[in-house]
């Protein structure tokens, strides 16, 4: 019935992949959208230039959680240089649903968290903060 809540989105929400804490992470980051109460902690373990493990915990809406599930699936096992090139538009393609401007922050929470992780491990500096 729904453009947004497709079965696979709801499936990722109910049973998110890579949900949990990983051992010996290279970096951890807690991201949140205070306005909606979405909050995730994402962790990354890099070995020999490859994302060996990635995990997240937290709570949020179906869009933010499905996005984190899909994103972590996508980059797990990938060389860091590929992950660095993965852009916001790629995540939206991965989600495959029409995201309204009001929900974009939900969809992008996992992506923003990943950018902080990449910054922390020195793979890709964060872009200069936009004036808010």
């Amino acid at each position, binding site marked *: *019935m*729904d453009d*947004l*809540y497709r079965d696979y989105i*709801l499936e990722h*929400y*109910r*049973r*998110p992949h890579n*949900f949990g804490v990983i051992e010996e992470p290279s970096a951890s980051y807690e991201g949140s959208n*205070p*306005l*909606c*109460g*979405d*909050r995730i902690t994402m962790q990354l373990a890099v070995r020999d230039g490859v994302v060996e493990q990635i995990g997240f915990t937290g*709570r*949020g*809406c*179906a*869009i*933010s959680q499905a996005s984190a599930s899909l994103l972590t699936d996508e980059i797990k096992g990938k060389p860091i240089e590929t992950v660095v090139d993965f852009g916001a538009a790629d995540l939206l393609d991965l989600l495959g649903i029409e995201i309204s401007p009001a*929900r974009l922050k*939900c969809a992008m929470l996992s992506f923003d968290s990943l950018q902080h992780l990449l910054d922390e491990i020195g793979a890709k500096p964060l872009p200069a903060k936009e004036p808010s």
Partner: protein
Amino acid sequence: MATEIDPRAGSRTVGVARVPAGTPGVVPIDPTALRADFPILDQVINGHPLVYLDSAATSQKPRIVLDAVDAFYREYNANVHRGIYTIGERATAAYEAARASTARFIGVPDPHEIVFTRNATEAINLVAYSWGRRNIGRGDVIVLTEMEHHANLVPWQLLAQESDADLEFIPITDDGLLRQDVFDVLLRLKPKLVAFAHVSNTLGTINPVEAMTRRAHEAGALVLVDGAQAVPHIPVDVAAIGCDFYAFSGHKMLAPTGSGALWGRRELLEAMPPFLAGGEMIREVHLRRSEWNDIPWKFEAGTPDISAAVGLGAAAEYLMGLGMDRVQAHEQDLVAYALDLLPREVPGIEIYGPSAEQRGGVVSFNLPGVHPHDVAQVLDRFGIAVRAGHHCTMPLHERLDLAATARASFGVYTTKADLDALAAGLRQVVELFGTQRPLS
């Protein structure tokens, strides 16, 4: 939404049901007839009639308010307190008449004690800056509550940081009532100011403002009441409350955005320095000093939002025409209906806040395993508008250990059919999301 009531016939007859029922002596409002006064409600959203359940965020506007705003711009747009010409004088008269209506609406005999502001937030900031910076010093105590809207919290945080004052908070019980026993303890700290919401925007709790004001005064404190969620829903008489400041927004009480008011006791307002400076608020200006205008104009620097003020006056008259006792009875009836209906019809729903008789027209809730954003998004598919998030009460959500809630809130035009639609929509949400999510 056809009705035989002519909206031009005057607000006094609008929405009066033919058959009195319920509360003795109070002729109930017929919201279905009243809806004809609100053109925005007559529309289809995503194939469904609009069910607007976000009146605590902002209310819809009756035709009489829309017409008042329109007439100002079409017929007598001119600046106030300046023009020596016909439409200028008409604008000033309408602006001041709106002040008189607003004063009468909250039981204030002297309209000069009403300062027009943009909203309740600005009204509270006015007190925090103007009264606060002159009267709050190092070690002074301001008592607030855990259920405050950020508008009645953050201005006091700024003041406390600047003046090295202390903030104390009245906690809430699990069902969302203020802990009056703790309030008594906090009053022993001899606070300079006690500031609290008349009605909670998240839980709907109607606080015992009169008793709390009396006790605060006995302890030597002044009292500011945030009435943003009270004035649209229950009769308010500041003289009976006995408080010192009362702040509210117009846009939540059927008036345009950009309208709001602060009521303050004359002697307090007169002793306070101006908040904003510029034109209108002065009597004499010299290059190095100025003399302030009388209240309330001392606090109304610059050209005000005249059309919004005129709209606020019209909204106050409309609500007084309906009778605020009838408005309260109507919303009480809706709350009781919702608190009975939703737990019966919506499996697993969790509702926060007190029982119906202690609550204004606000019902905040969660569905197990579904984020409130998703609740609101799915409800929108059925044309139902609810708020999702923390409703500008993050500390309250922290206290209740909730990341966010969904909130349905009512107005004079809300019907039981709206609540039936909400229940049906929520059942759809439950169906879509299915079994509870194991991880969270």
